């Protein structure tokens, strides 16, 4: 088994555009769940808004890509308003139910055949990202020691991590402000906040919108880095939301860097276990009847799930979390 290449691949995955996409989605969930206590189980829906908001203007109307950025963000804002308006006055679980359903509804909507002139139907949309790659200053693969990145990947990596850093900067500013304090107060006890004159409904809506915009940015990043938008469950379905949650909890909720570090580790571990299983398989250490080639993808998620369970048992606050805070969890 070639351990070096397994580790190199894992490290390369850690900085990949995919890790940045998860980081953006998880930053949004951190605002929702970590700071405000909102259970948004439809982050993939916000990603869909971003991805299609970006690609549709180019694909359907031939507009430049930058207009898509605006549409993507606007779509996320509208989605947040539509989800929040009927549910944020109700108990917390209503939002959870509505978001998970709405995210799936929009995914089925964009793949509807009748909309294929606009959304590409079940084929999705390809070839809308040339405006971005035309600006690519890299012409050949970038190599650092054993690491090697294609020019396109490198360009997407830069965009992705710049977005993540800007996002963290934004979070730093707003979370450590009186606004952020109201978010946390609502998370702890909404009625206490209202009794002190805070408009909990409005602040929750703001939180839903802001976190949703991060979801949309993740969706746009996904669209840009893969150069394609697909209405598939792996890309924009519920698993995406739950992996983003896994990354957030791994890193530590309500921590500035929790979602970023969590995403990096999540993606690296995923790649690492994948490499390990495949390596062990080709070395003949795992018999074919136990795990077949096609089952590796599933197996790594099982291993990851076990890993997450162990983490929850021995370090429930995540990597960055504060143990003291966990003691008061209600």
């Amino acid at each position, binding site marked *: 088994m070639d351990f070096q290449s397994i580790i190199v691949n894992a490290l390369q995955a850690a900085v990949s555009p995919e890790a940045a996409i998860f980081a953006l989605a998880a930053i949004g969930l951190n605002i929702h769940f970590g700071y405000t206590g909102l259970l948004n189980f439809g982050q993939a829906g916000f990603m869909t808004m971003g991805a299609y908001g970006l690609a549709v203007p180019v694909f359907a109307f031939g507009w430049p890509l930058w207009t898509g950025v605006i549409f993507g963000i606007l779509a996320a804002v509208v989605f947040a308003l539509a989800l929040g308006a009927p549910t944020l006055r109700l108990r917390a679980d209503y939002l959870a139910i509505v978001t998970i359903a709405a995210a799936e509804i929009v995914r089925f909507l964009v793949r509807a055949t009748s909309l294929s002139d606009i959304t590409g139907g079940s084929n999705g949309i390809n070839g809308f990202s040339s405006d971005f790659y035309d600006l690519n200053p890299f012409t050949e693969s970038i190599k650092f020691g054993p690491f090697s990145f294609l020019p396109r990947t490198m360009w997407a990596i830069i965009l992705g991590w710049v977005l993540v850093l800007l996002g963290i900067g934004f979070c730093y500013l707003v979370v450590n402000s009186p606004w952020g304090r109201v978010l946390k107060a609502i998370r702890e006890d909404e*009625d206490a906040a209202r009794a002190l004159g805070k408009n909990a409904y409005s602040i929750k809506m703001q939180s839903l919108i802001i976190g949703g915009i991060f979801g949309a940015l993740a969706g746009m990043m996904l669209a840009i880095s893969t150069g394609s938008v697909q209405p598939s469950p792996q890309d924009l379905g519920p698993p995406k939301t739950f992996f983003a949650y896994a990354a957030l909890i791994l890193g530590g909720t309500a921590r500035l860097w929790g979602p970023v570090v969590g995403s990096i580790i999540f993606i690296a571990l995923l790649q690492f276990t994948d490499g390990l299983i495949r390596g062990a398989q080709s070395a003949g250490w795992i018999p074919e009847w136990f795990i077949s080639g096609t089952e590796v993808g599933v197996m790594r998620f099982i291993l990851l799930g076990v890993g997450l369970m162990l983490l929850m048992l021995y370090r429930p606050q995540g990597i960055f979390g504060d143990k003291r805070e966990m003691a008061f969890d209600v």
Partner: protein
Amino acid sequence: MSSASEVETAWGADRPESTPGSKKSDPILVVDGIRRTFGGLTAVDVDHLEIQRNKITALIGPNGAGKTTFFNLITGFDAPDAGSWSYNGEPMSSLAPHKVALKGMVRTFQLTKALARLSVIENMKLGAQNQKGENLFRAMMRGWKDEERANEERADALLKRFKMDHMREEFAGGLSGGQRKLLEMARALMTEPDLIMLDEPMAGVNPALTQSLLGHVKELRDEGRTVVFVEHDMDVVRDISDWVVVMAEGKIIAEGTHEEIGKNRQVIDAYLGSHHDEDLTFDDEEE
């Protein structure tokens, strides 16, 4: 301890009649026909009630009398089946709780609501009203730092007054029950309320501290604020209240000074009727 004459002197010519729903010379809160039922149970059914401005009014009554429900209704946390009320002459019915608070009517909760994973000082600073930094766009611009410093000073002064300054950086979730009561009251004061409604503020607070807290409540009145508080401890009621309103089974059954209430047959019946084993301490020790 205030003697009988002291309470009477304080009222002077404004002395209201000692009948349920009596007129007050300068009411801050006027309630009319407010009713709340839970299924077949009528929790609150108040025909008329006026609360005098700049006085300390005690709201007493046996368990389940409807005191907390009454607080919930007045502060917008619950909606009545019928009725209206006005605060400073302004109709308040169906106003959202945060708007009620912004108008200067602030309440605390019988079951304390400490914000567990915020520090004591952050709990306090949350209470300050109309903060610039609570606007998302201004929050980013950092233009709120001066305001924050001023709020922090005020919070520290209040914490000192409530003898909680040594717990400043602790998580509120780590406080004892009594400390949470104190924190919640201090936090409510951060809003600079005109009318503060305290639901059993002394429950679980140690007797030595109760004495100094009572002093603080009187100070609130001296600062021009109005206090309404629910309390089961009759010593506390006797100590600080200018006026006592008695609720039983949702209705106001008596009003008066604490001496009058202590002698009121109907009140004693109401308590004994539902709590034979309750230790009634109405008999005034000063007699």
